């Protein structure tokens, strides 16, 4: 019934629009406005540009100021402060250009709307002007690029020796988190070793892997460098930790990395935002299939002491599941069993 009523309503509306259209066409034919260069609409359109400038500009300022705290994510890493600063400097520079060019773009139509009494000025070129507006943007852009380039070089430089290594492996549709254990060296891995009990395909013939452990959350210390070793086992994924200003693709067959220094513990951030529920999160930003929107891992940032204690409390893969080392050569198996007994 509703569908029928809506259909009738739409039909009525369309026929009214149709009538108005026909009438205004006929009126314009009678008035002979099709013979004129411009009609009254020219003035209306010119005015509309001004209205749009004021209206849309006002809306932009109002919303940008009102929502600032919402869209401006708090930052919790050292390099994030730098990139945020670059972002806002770029915003200031481009913002000024944006506003000036738009004021000109929308005021000119009003000011120079057609008038029979006036002719346009014949002004085909001016090399001086062209040079100015080639060189000035070039200089401004060069400055912006140099700032970006320095930050980029620092961010992508090799991680410090003492960085805490965490391996993040993306798969459909979750992240597997692996820690290197007390030796801070991840054991080797081979994708062919992957199975239900060895999600990361850890190669336990490598001694370094004996103390590797997995964790349901990414636990990292504040104020110390952390190195994410990133890989994927099926399709592309991308590690995105928005508060850390961190993003790096996870590529099958090509390990990637990203290191950073967290600056605020989860507890500090909760206090700062006055939100006891707050958590740092990792999301996926490279389309990876049906569950792309749900690849979540939490990051917990703690004080360094607490972190060390936490690491010491964790149990390696082989302790949780001794079957993993059942098939190892004798020598390694003994070593593994010693490790297991140490943890018990």
């Amino acid at each position, binding site marked *: 019934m509703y569908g029928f009523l809506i259909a009738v309503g739409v039909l009525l509306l369309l026929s009214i629009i149709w009538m108005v259209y026909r009438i*205004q066409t006929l009126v314009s034919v009678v008035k002979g406005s099709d013979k004129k260069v*411009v*009609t009254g609409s020219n003035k209306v359109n010119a005015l509309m540009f001004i209205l749009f400038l004021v209206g849309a500009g006002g809306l932009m300022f109002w919303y940008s100021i009102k929502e600032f705290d919402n*869209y401006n*994510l708090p930052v919790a890493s050292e390099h*994030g402060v730098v*990139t945020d600063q670059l*972002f806002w400097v*770029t915003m200031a*520079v*481009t913002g000024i*250009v*944006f506003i000036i060019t738009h004021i000109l*773009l*929308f005021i000119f139509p009003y000011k*120079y*709307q*057609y008038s029979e009494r006036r*002719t*346009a*000025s*014949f*002004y*085909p*070129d*001016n090399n001086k*002007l*062209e040079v100015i*507006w*080639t060189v000035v*943007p070039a200089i401004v*852009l060069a400055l912006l*690029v140099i700032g*970006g*380039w320095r930050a*980029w070089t620092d961010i*992508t430089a090799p991680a410090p020796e003492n960085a805490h290594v965490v391996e993040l492996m993306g798969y459909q549709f979750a992240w597997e988190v692996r820690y290197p254990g007390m030796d801070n060296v991840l054991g080797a891995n081979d994708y*062919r070793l992957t199975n239900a009990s060895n999600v990361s395909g850890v190669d336990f013939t490598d001694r370094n892997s004996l103390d590797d452990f997995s964790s349901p959350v990414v636990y990292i210390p504040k104020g110390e460098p952390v190195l994410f070793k990133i890989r994927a*086992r*099926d*399709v*592309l994924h991308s590690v*995105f930790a928005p*508060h850390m200003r961190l*993003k*790096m693709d996870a*590529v*099958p*067959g*090509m390990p990637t990395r990203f290191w950073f220094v967290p600056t605020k513990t989860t507890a500090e951030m909760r206090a700062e935002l006055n939100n006891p529920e*707050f958590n740092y*999160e990792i999301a*996926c*930003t*490279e*389309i*990876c*299939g049906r569950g*792309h*929107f749900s690849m979540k891992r939490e990051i917990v940032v703690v004080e360094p002491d607490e972190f060390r204690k936490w690491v010491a409390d964790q149990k390696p893969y082989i302790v949780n599941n001794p079957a993993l080392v059942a098939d190892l050569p004798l020598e390694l198996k003994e070593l593994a069993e010693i490790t297991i007994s140490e943890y018990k």
Partner: protein
Amino acid sequence: MATAESALHNATAHDHHDHEHHDNFITKYIFSTDHKMIGKQFLVTGIFWAIIGGALSIIFRLQLGFPDMELHWLKPLLGGWIDEGGKLDPNFYLALVTMHGTIMVFFVLTAGLSGTFSNYLIPLQIGARDMASGFMNMLSYWLFFVSGVIMFISLFIETGPASGGWVVYPPLSALEQAMPGSGLGMTLWLISMTFFIASSLLGGINYITTVINLRTKGMSFSRLPLTIWAFFLTAVIGLLSFPVLFSAALLLVFDRSFGTSFYLSDIYIGGEALPNTGGSAVLYQHLFWFLGHPEVYIVLLPALGITSEIIATQSRKPIFGYKAMIISMLGIAILSFVVWAHHMFVSGMNPFLGSIFMFLTLIIAIPSAVKVFNYLTTLWRGNLIFTPGMLFSIGLVSFFISGGLTGIFLGNSAIDIQLHDTYFVVAHFHLVMGSASFFGLMAGVYHWFPKMFGRMMDARLGYIHFWLTFIGVYMVFFPMHYIGIAGFPRRYYSWTNFEFTNMYTDLNMFVSAAAIITFAAQAIFLFNFFYSMYRGRKAPMNPWRSTTLEWTTPVNPGHGNWPGEIPAVYRWPYDYSKPGAAEDFIPQTVPLSATPESNLPHEQELVKLEKEIIAEEEAMLVADETKTV
């Protein structure tokens, strides 16, 4: 040389006005080799695809803006992709996003824009009877048509169309196990794109050849309208970059079907380890973006060319900095090939490459800035007539600024770390490439409709269409900047899984509502377009009082465009409001010697030369006549 050319001109001229062509329905409307009809075919097909592409975006905007909405009413159309609870399937959501991108970028803004206006305008504006090869031109359209048919079929297959994003990165797109869309849908995508690439290569070769070889007498490169410069450079870019996409697609076909490992390595999926090793997923990205980035300019340059022409005409002023505009376009065309890896700053490629590409990327901003300043100066002290075409052109400049400036953020690799693959990117490219090019297309349609169909479109409906679309586009894409700065990733089916994205439901709802209104407003255009085609006011020969050659043809140009000889060209195309001239425009066909009152000093010197050439030509004509007698 000159003799041979003029003899040729005469021969073709006789050929065309001595006997009428009698086309039947099939040769006139279907397998036509006339560039005007092929241009219209591209246009109508482009409009068809724009409606499909737009409708797909509306469906996924419903999901994003109104996540709790029951979509049972879409079941007749989408069938199993709507589940029992009336929810959209997440796999199909990705398919929608992918198809929207593919259709809009390739079918609407490449074929619909370049295909329409390069075909339609090149011969008319350079003074040629037709394209260099009418048959190749026809083939170009029909390959595009076949490509479209295949893509259209892929929308309806059981496993859904390709769903890996319009960039179809492997391994996702290479492995059927990864998502249903990577099966038959992806195969069809690859086949369709192969036809499409062939089509655009045939078109491109034709455009280039025609512009170089078939310009009329006096139409030197320095007298070409900027539209032609834009189409010409676009065709060159396409010719150099599309083959690389083809190679990327071919290697992907090998990986998918013949067990090679170009892009695949170390993969464990669906409970088994695949044998592929040694491939590189990043290799595909390099190959793809080697087309993908120039593609941005393939869709944008024609729009900028069209805008240059319309802004000059409707400002009644020469375009400011004609030469600077050409140099900028040349600069953009060349630089467009050396910036591709700025799409890959965080792909895992060597960070040193990131530095290089950051520098190159920000260089390309300079010619773009020059173009904007030149547009503004063209408007300055003009005598502006707001035809719908002019309104859309001004709208384009606005989008070009808004979207271009955000490119400065994204081209900076340090800032891009945070913004990459967020809604900030979506906002950026939808403004600078999507909406700007779309506005170029609209401007072109409104401006050249009288030439295409011999009738005028209704201006008032055009105004309403413009204002609804212009405001609508900003309402859709401007808020996305905020969402992007807040870190919302692209291609997300829903936002509620993450705390940092579990907000802005209101803003997303607003965006979706704006998108629906904007999409609905296009009905005004569709009505205006098809109604005016048959019932619109009859167009005069030169409705915009424009200087370029196409307006010297009859209202409904026949086969061969000019009934008599092709007019010669004596001046550049932007003699608007020249001081001393009686009218505020002097067509390109008016000799300098006929306008002593308005000639500039350097033109006055050319008059003598011009007179000599004309005398020579006449002597030759007489000689020809006596020969034939």
